[in-house]
């Protein structure tokens, strides 16, 4: 189960790269109305379902109509309960993302820039990567307790691997021809890293961080499933135990929005760094 989660995340990283390719030909132009086509299907389904429940064709007890889901979401927001949960989840994801991301960048950079270090580190890390991250949960709980530390650790592990792989891979695939330009101008190792390697890997580093963040949101759910008194994951479990499907769906929608917003902020924040590249942009 957890293996599946991890696998789909790896492939989503490749998916992101594949999606990047066609937009190469796309030029920045006025708002493309065809984007709205994407909203058509979910809205149609929602309206149909709403109508089906209204006209008594469906019960709507296990699958509540959209109006009730939004009412629940609104109620949660009004009491302030929603924000407590959102904040708890966000804090865990961000802390885990920062720890896992920084570790991934450091180890990825080491492994990408030195053959010796790569031979030393990479086999072990690859072996660890093969372990479904959720299998660490019992160990983390024993070591770090059932509160925040073990949750953050699990998220950090989830974020670490895509970032590590992305950074190491990006450094290894830097164009040798550009590195030679650095040699011609007699750059020192540090200068070479700063003036050529770093800018060259930035676009792929952003992709790696984005898939790391995506995994962070995936793992926060697992972390909150293992016992939490707040967080969107807690809302999910609570909704199941209390038989409140509208609360579960409200939490899912909150997750979707939160994940999308966090990803957009990351893209926006790194945009100035990769502006020179026309492929990473107009993606998702």
């Amino acid at each position, binding site marked *: 189960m957890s293996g599946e989660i991890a696998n789909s995340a790896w492939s989503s990283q490749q998916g992101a790269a594949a999606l990047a390719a066609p937009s190469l030909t796309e030029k920045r132009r006025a708002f493309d109305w065809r984007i709205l086509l994407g909203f058509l299907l979910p809205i149609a389904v929602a309206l149909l379902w709403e109508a089906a429940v209204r006209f008594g064709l469906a019960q709507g007890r296990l699958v509540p109509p959209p109006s009730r889901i939004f009412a629940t979401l609104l109620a949660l927001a009004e009491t302030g309960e929603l924000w407590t949960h959102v904040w708890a989840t966000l804090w865990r994801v961000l802390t885990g993302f920062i720890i896992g991301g920084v570790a991934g960048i450091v180890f990825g950079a080491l492994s990408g820039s030195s053959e010796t270090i790569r031979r030393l580190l990479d086999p072990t890390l690859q072996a660890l990567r093969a372990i479904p991250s959720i299998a660490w949960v019992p160990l983390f709980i024993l070591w770090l307790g059932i509160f925040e530390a073990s949750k953050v650790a699990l998220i950090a592990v989830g974020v670490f691997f895509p970032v590590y792989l992305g950074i190491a891979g990006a450094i290894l695939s830097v164009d040798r021809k550009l590195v030679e*330009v650095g040699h*011609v*101008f007699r750059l020192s190792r540090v*200068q070479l890293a700063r003036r050529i390697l770093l800018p060259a890997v930035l676009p792929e580093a952003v992709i790696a961080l984005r898939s790391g963040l995506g995994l962070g949101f995936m793992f926060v759910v697992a972390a909150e499933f293992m016992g939490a008194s707040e967080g969107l994951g807690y809302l999910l479990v609570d909704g199941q135990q209390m038989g409140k499907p509208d609360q579960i769906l409200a939490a899912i929608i909150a997750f979707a929005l939160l994940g999308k917003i966090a990803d957009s902020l990351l893209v926006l924040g790194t945009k100035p760094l990769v502006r020179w*590249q026309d492929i990473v942009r107009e993606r998702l």
Partner: protein
Amino acid sequence: MLELEHLSKTYADGTRALSDINLSVRQGEIVSLIGGSGCGKTTLLRLIAGLDQASTGAIKLDGEALSGPHPSVGIVFQEPRLLPWLSVSDNIAFGLDHISATERKERVAHALEKIGLIEHAKRWPRDLSGGQQQRVAIARAFVTNPKVLLLDEPFSALDAFTRASLHEHLLGLWEETRPTVVLVTHDVQEAVTLADRAVVMQPKPGRIFDELPLTLSRPRDKTDLPFETSVRRVLTALDHSLKPSHQQPQRERDRQAAALWW
């Protein structure tokens, strides 16, 4: 003076890319290396640029042995190799880290003017045409005022019109500081347009087959009779270099006679 003495290069896989290359290039001379592909032309430039190590022999610049990239030696590759994250002017300034910001600005602005890309200074390389990119690459090599400039088929990917205009840009830049230029090409017209001497190379192992002085006055007119005669002479040498029977080039005497004739 750039001197190559008994230069040989055998790659790790046993390919003898160069064998016993001897060549002296005067300060300010433009020499063009001509030969089919696989003659070791790129290998030779990479050795001079210090990007590869020779198996035997020495490379000397004004008596100083070169071993590795040298501040007085610049190179322009077959591809522009611009850094895509730097603007056009920052690309040109790439090798000028050691000088003051004001002088750097001045030199870059001057180079931009010389290559006619002033209005493109702030653009990304991706927004330039192939010919414009190669002009930037040439400017990047020139602004450091190298004593020796190496060019490896820098115009081979461009159409004839663009190529002719780049020849002018190159000569315009060269006029200013008169560096020694070693230009690799497989285009005889190009060699005769630009060079003071053509060095014809032969493959397997890569070696020098013949040298022909090109003593036409500048600027050169491609429709001139002397120009055409020179082209024909280089073509003949190239032709002979490809036939195994002609191991020895025709000697200096005939050539001098031919040169004196007109």
